[in-house]
């Protein structure tokens, strides 16, 4: 009898552990395939630890005091406004604790990440850098690689729609704009997004570490079919990419309709500040 109970308990445990791990898998962010995504996740986790700590304190106070000092258990309340000295102490301790453990750590770390990583664009004339121009419109993405002459907005540009081909292990710089409304270029697998805005050029750089097929999303409400504004991103090993690029370059002249002004939506590459 006892044994049977134990077995069935174990079984329940197994099933619920399975459900728990399914739950965790469901809520895991998409795989990080960028060189810097872990920095964002680190800060996320740090804030989570701090939040859990402070929220636990709040809950201890909230539920603990509610339990201990309910009218049933504590008939006579303590008559106090909290004297000035105590008040100042509480204020100072809490203010300092929050400032030191949360505010300053987060601000400094985030600022360092911004200055040393996210805003540190590779040199514009570095030949190893891949440059991509992105034009967003309702409801699709256009991508433009400079092609053989390394100059944008010429006949040999490799232009693709809703499908981006890129190598891994190289720094990639995007310059983005939009034809109509504001869109947002969201790379869930790299943990970053940047708005594509009409009349402006925004920039972002990224380096991928894993080949395969991934998704690009539009994260800014851009009209009725916002939800359909999805693009595919195929990442190759550097050699494979070179092969793809040379093959694509062969068709570039055929595919770019040189008679249409519209196909010259590219712009002169702007240097990275």
């Amino acid at each position, binding site marked *: 009898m006892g044994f049977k109970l134990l077995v069935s308990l174990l079984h329940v445990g197994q099933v619920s552990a399975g459900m728990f791990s399914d739950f965790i898998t469901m809520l895991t962010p998409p795989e990080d395939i960028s060189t810097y995504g872990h920095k964002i996740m680190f800060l996320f986790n740090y804030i989570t630890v701090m939040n859990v700590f402070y929220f636990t304190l709040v809950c201890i106070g909230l539920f603990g005091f509610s339990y201990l000092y309910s009218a049933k258990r504590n008939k006579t309340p303590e008559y106090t406004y909290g004297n000035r000295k105590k008040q100042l102490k509480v204020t100072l301790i809490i203010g300092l604790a929050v400032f030191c453990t949360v505010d300053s750590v987060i601000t400094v770390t985030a600022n360092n990440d911004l200055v040393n990583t996210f805003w540190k664009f590779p040199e514009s004339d570095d030949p190893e850098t891949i440059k991509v121009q992105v034009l967003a419109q*309702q409801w699709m993405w256009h991508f433009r690689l400079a092609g053989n002459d390394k100059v944008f907005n010429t006949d040999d540009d490799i232009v693709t729609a809703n499908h981006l081909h890129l190598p891994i292990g190289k720094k990639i710089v995007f310059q983005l704009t939009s034809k109509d409304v504001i869109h947002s270029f969201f790379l869930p697998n790299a943990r970053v997004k940047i708005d594509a805005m009409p009349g*402006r050029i925004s920039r972002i750089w990224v380096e991928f570490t894993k080949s395969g097929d991934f998704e690009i999303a539009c994260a800014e409400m851009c009209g009725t079919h916002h939800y359909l504004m999805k693009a595919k991103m195929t990442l190759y090993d550097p050699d494979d990419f070179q092969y793809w690029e040379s093959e694509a370059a062969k068709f570039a002249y055929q595919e770019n309709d040189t008679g249409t002004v519209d196909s010259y939506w590219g712009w002169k590459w702007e240097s990275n500040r």
Partner: protein
Amino acid sequence: MKVLVHAHDAPNTFLSKYIISYDHKVIAKQFLWLGMVFLAIGGLMAMLIRWTLANPGVPMPFFGHLLFPNSGGVVPPDSYAMLFTEHGTIMIFWAITPILIGAFGNLLIPLQIGARDMIFPTLNMLSFHFTFVSGVIMLLALCTPLGGAAGGWTAYPTLSLNLGSPGAGQTLWAIAIFLFGISSTMGAINYITTVICLRAPGMGYFDMPLAVWGLLLTAILNAIFVPVLGAGGLLLVFDRVFETQYFLAGAAATSGTGDPILFQHVFWIFGHPEVYILILPAWGIVSDLLSFFSRKPAFGYKATALSMCAITVLSTLVYGHHMFTTQMSPLLTQSFMTLTMTISIPSAIFFANWLGTLYKGSIRFTSPMLFSLGVVFVFGLGGLTGLYLGTTTTDFYLHDTYFVVGHFHYTMAASVFLAGFGAIYFWWPKMYGTMLNERLAKAHFWATILPLNGVFMGMMMMGYAGMHRRLYNPFIYDFLKKLIPMNNFVTTCAILMGFAQIFFITNLIWTYFKGEQASDNPWEVGTLEWTTPSPVPHYNFKSIPIVKCGPHELGNPKLTTGRDFQYQTEELVEV
């Protein structure tokens, strides 16, 4: 200073009672009912949104065929965009604002500072009428040929210009917002002036209940920033109707001088203080209620009031954290991030004072107290999750995801409405002279707060998993397909929370027919409104009260009156 108050008769006729009234108590009731009607409309819209997210392409049961006959009961994508736009706009401007600021501002400010009415009764009346008209325009916009506004409640150009949303709907949206802005500005001027000029003799600023503090600071923010929103809305109307190009850029721009990001700056200069406009009255009310039902003075009253002031000032300096992904200048990005972080310090002091009030109290778990404790829990979660979004790098990932949606619902929706319900249960006797049923009120609380956390916590988890906002069908994306069960869970919780409001409606109906008469001071607290009979008579006070002590004189052991509290009109009994 001698101030003349506009004299008017007691509201006796139907017209003066329900339509054209100068009486602050009647206007408070008008705002309350308007807010509750719009709350119901906005809530039903939320149900449609949630249904679509959990079951994209599946006809909605019951209402589907009535509302969307052309698509066989399925919410179509364009209607979906209208639904989330109107849900946001209605909830913020025509549900929270009328209930928390319109109704309780009007009810509490004169009663709690010992005045007979607002200082500008006509302005007060007009303020309600403008809100009413603007709300009607907002709803009528849905009936225009191309439907209502569909660019999100933020209405970012160029999507909100003719280029992105043709038709009259978006124009009417901007006009409604402008009219609403006029109403709020009138209300704000009235509140500020009333608090400054009409406080009863003896009532210093630090003798006011914290609810009045919250409402005063809200009114100050309203007076400064709502006109900015009005300006933005008007420029939007110009762009749409007169074809100016303030916000137009891209292929359609001919002059080349407009900039859609300009609107974002204008919008968020207003938009961030707006968050505090909505939450400050709730904070004030909760701070008072916690003290009243712990039967002891509010811990650190002055520190609480000053933290509220500090947050009010800081709230005007942080709006840029809504725009990190627009690639502002690095200097702006860094400054806005740093300033945003500093808000955590006064907020932490706030929480410490709330818990300090509970400490060694003698807590009565009445329904208003339950709702107040709920606010502490819910706002704790909402406030802390703001840290992720104020940090620029984590915001790169979380911006425009469901994490943001969960976060701002915790702060702006959950805590504000919980405080609103608490206030309704608490001050109902002063408004209508009857007590709402406590048992139903407690059932309402528990049935609301449990699914509420399921909904908004679920949303934050989905956002962390990468699901972005305003998607008609998120499962177009492969990496979001695994979130179908989570969306189902959130929708189930949302529907449960919707049904929980039946307790509230039942309570109102039951009380209307069978509610017991309230005594003058059923909750045994000492602020000025409880020195008047229930319901409060015309002109509130027989003679203007003279204030002799603070608002939270509870639990003084030296009291000899047989009560455990002191009215503010009584000489302070020294310990």
